[in-house]
């Protein structure tokens, strides 16, 4: 499969990061090679096979709807952000 520059741009956009020209051209080659390898799967007959999304053997794990005390309080968690003001996380102006 041919990966075009337009596709690389689209994928970077979906991924929410930007790429410089050097990264773009390297990733174009990389992704092309990777897709060539994974297209090997087309050889495998999966007619009438159900998909598996997880290998955890249990379903519907329930617990009572009660508040469980957590290890970190509000202030400790807020302190992790780069900027805070009035007990809130500060971000650049949106509007």
């Amino acid at each position: 499969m041919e990966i075009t520059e337009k596709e690389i741009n689209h994928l970077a956009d979906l991924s929410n990061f930007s790429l410089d020209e050097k990264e773009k051209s390297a990733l174009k080659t990389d992704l092309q090679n990777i897709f060539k390898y994974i297209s090997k799967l087309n050889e495998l007959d999966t007619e009438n096979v159900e998909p598996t999304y997880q290998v955890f053997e249990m379903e519907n794990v329930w617990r009572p709807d009660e508040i469980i005390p957590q290890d970190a309080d509000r202030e400790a968690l807020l302190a992790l952000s780069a900027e805070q003001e009035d007990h809130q996380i500060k971000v650049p102006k949106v509007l």
Partner: protein
Amino acid sequence: MRIANKSTSAVSLIKASLEKIEKHKDKNIFTFINAEPALKKAEEIDKKIKKGEPVGRLAGVPYALKDNFLSKEGETTASARILTGLESPIDATCVEKLEAEGAIMVGRTNLDAFAHGSSTENSYFGPTKNAFDSERVAGGSSGGSAVAVALDCVEFATGTDTGGSIRQPASFNGVFGIKPTYGTISRYGVVAMASSTDVLGFFAKSAADLDLLMEIASGHDEKDMTSLPDFYGSADVELGKKKIGFVKEFVESPALAPELKTALEEKLSLAKSKGYEIIELTLPALEYALAAYYIIQPAEVASNLSRYDGIRYAYRTKTLKSPKISSADKSSEKTALENLFLNTRSEGFMRENKRRIMIGNFVLSSGFYDAYFLKAAKARTLIIQEFEKAFKSVDAILSPVAPNPAFKLGEKVNDPVSMYLEDVMSVPVNLAGLPAVAFPAGSTTSEKTPHLPLGLQLIGPRRSDKNLLKLVEELV
């Protein structure tokens, strides 16, 4: 392992550990060293021992923590720039359990950023070097942990294994490593990579040490809904057939190094001499496991890594302007906040992280989902079914961990497909959620590469972890 008691003080164990860490500084094993707090904890344990008070089963044992485990000691970075500066307010459940038994964390170990890699070369802190040859890779992603144990810097180390990240570095450095059944150890407080295959496990110097660590760390945790009810040591799956299998496709693979093939054959002969019947297994779907894994895992990576945006914790960019060369045509319209997300992620992720996120977003995007992600999920079913069928006729499967011993630094880092091929014999286990134990099986003898460790893995049915470790003891 050496545990503190009346004749061996915890302080002496920690001091010896810190000396070894200093001695092997050039291997770039650690991202953080916890010297002072570790010595203080050791003094407290020694006081308790002196007074005759009870101490835990890991009293004064120095251990290394893979840097994707959250703990209140030091920054948790997962060797990724985007997590630098993160001082966790919580401990991972696994860390809590180890510390409650008196284990003392002496340092955090290097990994491929976000555990994306098979060599520990994709780290923001530079590569860790192989314990036996500084021109070769440590393996990965838990490279630092494997080398820390191999060079006796610590008694044991933690790891995570999403596609081989414990077993492959264990085999590259001649130590034991366990990748438990999916869900055996709580993943609470560990940086997520691919949630449907991520497991926590350990590196140690013997199967018996791994058994003790599993006793301590396993069990249900209400903070991780995918942790299994307690089974380790109480409801283990029996392995009583006295039959060990090997995978024909692996043994006949042209990619398999002749020395590993010989090591495998020698262990099979040893098993035979101990009364095990050796069975040849044909598992044709395993050939497709790597392709399926490199669809499923990047898809989960793309989802899990979407949370890193510079808002709530860790690294945040200083640049709020649009990047000069942007991926997006409409970049000029972006707000300062959108640019904050974009620039934080552009600067914070390594090339390999970006590769995986892009592959993941591709295989999940509309128009490609059925052809890639759904197809891989179906292949996963076939792989699981083949293993289930195999375990009807054998107790366990003996296999190489990787097709080759440790390769040279820089040899594969610019060719992702050749790097991914390193995982070809380890990923089927993760897709099926099975337990597997990597153990040393001699070393290379050729003039070109003398003394490189060779490693094999023993794979068992789900929840056979404890009996698998017992079986490994018979084979070493």
